[in-house]
């Protein structure tokens, strides 16, 4: 049973969640709503069909400035930011020298000497220490996490809602682009066309002090566009349907980005040597014994993290994330499986409480929005 709790940090939107009768849980030290009154399934539908507002203030923000900022980032991230334009956003794993993952982050380029990083809540302190340990030359790091509130506005109606609150022509803002200073309902914000749901949408950052005004403005502008609140539960299911990795599940100290199938975010040929490059090149050459695949249950049963996966009697891996998918009305999972066995067996089984349930290997993502 879900354990409700009153310890942990409150985001600036805590009172909004309570007023909306959200079920508050402790998520890596933060008190956040796992769902609201309508429930997780409806919140997933709201996000895919209309629009949803999420409090993601727990995410960490780090500013990187200075003449060597770009060079520094090139050395710590696996992706390549050479040629990244101002006002563009890029996703990248950050690796240890052995290829294991410190975190997966978003990098916002304000200009060549000024970047804004968004990191996972549970990893913020660890990341910041790691950045400091690797810093050199003219690089100034600042952990801004405690100053920023963040709202994710996701779903097909997001643009219409946000456009009511700003003069900026949002239609011109492309996916994975941002503006560093936008007035949204007279609140100074960073606005990016990004998200963790597989839908169109925006992530909006502002100072804690202005956060209530921002939330209220988005909320009231959203009323005629069927905006609803959505919690962490819906967020996790949405990202699973879109096959986006979650640190601690698809990526970790022990799991490399190549195992997680994130090859296109790992610039093995990058000119600047980055942390983990050699180890990842070696892994690519030698092959991978466990790689991420999609699974769809052929029998009713909920595949959950840690459940073993078998082909016949042979154990071939484990489930890293799994759930009922409201969008597909199916039970789906991602899991790390032996690629050689998978190539010869499209049908496998997931062990749920020592009973075997049939599943098949499927392509990722499970869900892709129509553009």
């Amino acid at each position: 049973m879900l354990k409700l709790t009153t310890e942990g940090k409150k985001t600036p939107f805590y009172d909004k969640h309570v007023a909306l009768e959200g079920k508050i849980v402790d998520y890596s030290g933060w008190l956040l709503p796992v769902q609201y009154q309508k429930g997780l399934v409806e919140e997933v539908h709201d996000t895919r069909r209309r629009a949803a507002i999420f409090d993601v203030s727990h995410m960490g923000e780090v500013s990187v400035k200075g003449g060597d900022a770009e060079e520094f980032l090139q050395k710590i991230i696996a992706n390549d930011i050479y040629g990244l334009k101002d006002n563009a956003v890029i996703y990248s794993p950050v690796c240890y020298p052995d290829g294991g993952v410190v975190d997966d982050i978003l990098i916002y380029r304000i200009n060549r000497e000024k970047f804004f990083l968004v990191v996972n809540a549970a990893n913020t302190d660890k990341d910041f220490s790691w950045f400091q340990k690797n810093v050199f030359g003219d690089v100034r790091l600042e952990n801004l996490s405690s100053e920023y509130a963040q709202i994710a506005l996701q779903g097909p109606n997001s643009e219409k809602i946000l456009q009511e609150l700003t003069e900026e022509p949002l239609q011109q803002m492309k996916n994975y682009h941002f503006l560093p200073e936008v007035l949204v309902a007279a609140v100074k914000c960073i606005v990016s066309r990004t998200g963790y749901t597989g839908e169109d949408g925006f992530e909006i950052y502002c100072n804690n002090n202005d956060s209530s005004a921002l939330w209220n403005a988005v909320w009231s502008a959203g009323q005629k566009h069927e905006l609803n609140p959505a919690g962490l539960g819906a967020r996790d299911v949405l990202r699973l349907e879109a096959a986006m990795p979650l640190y601690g599940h698809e990526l970790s100290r022990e799991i490399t980005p190549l195992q997680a199938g994130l090859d296109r975010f790992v610039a093995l040929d990058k000119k600047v040597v980055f942390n983990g490059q050699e180890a990842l090149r070696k892994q690519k050459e030698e092959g991978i014994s466990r790689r991420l695949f999609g699974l769809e249950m052929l029998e009713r049963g909920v595949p959950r993290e840690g459940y073993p996966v078998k082909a016949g009697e042979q154990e071939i891996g484990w489930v890293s994330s799994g759930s009922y998918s409201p969008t597909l009305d199916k039970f789906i999972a991602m899991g790390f499986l032996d690629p050689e066995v998978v190539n010869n067996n499209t049908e496998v089984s997931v062990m749920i409480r020592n009973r075997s349930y049939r599943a098949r290997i499927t392509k990722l993502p499970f869900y892709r929005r129509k553009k």
Partner: protein
Amino acid sequence: MMKYNIVDGLMYTKKHEWSRQEGSSAVVGLSDYAQDKLGEIVFVELPDVGAEVEAGQGAAVIESVKAVADLYAPLDGSVIEINEELLDQPELINTDPYGAGWVFKIEIKDESQLGLLMDDKAYAIFVVEEEEEN
């Protein structure tokens, strides 16, 4: 104000199962409070007919999108009927926890165990206390 439906005539456990006596047998299910806490139920694992269940021991598994919960048998007994409707429509536990959402029926082994369960009034107080604790 109690926001959860608690039906009189049923007996309840501290793990939020209910039991309705019908002669020498008892129908078992999950309380409205429990289904609300779990959220949308998407899967139910039922015991086999004929299985022996023991008071306080796991007899069925109820899964919502986010959580896995054991349903503990309120009484010792042997399973004589299961609600197979739940296999295709597990959400019946959400929509009608005391009716169409019943889970299984047992032949009661020891009627004296009924005295260890709570009636609706005692259970209502128990739920309020549990809410305050959280």
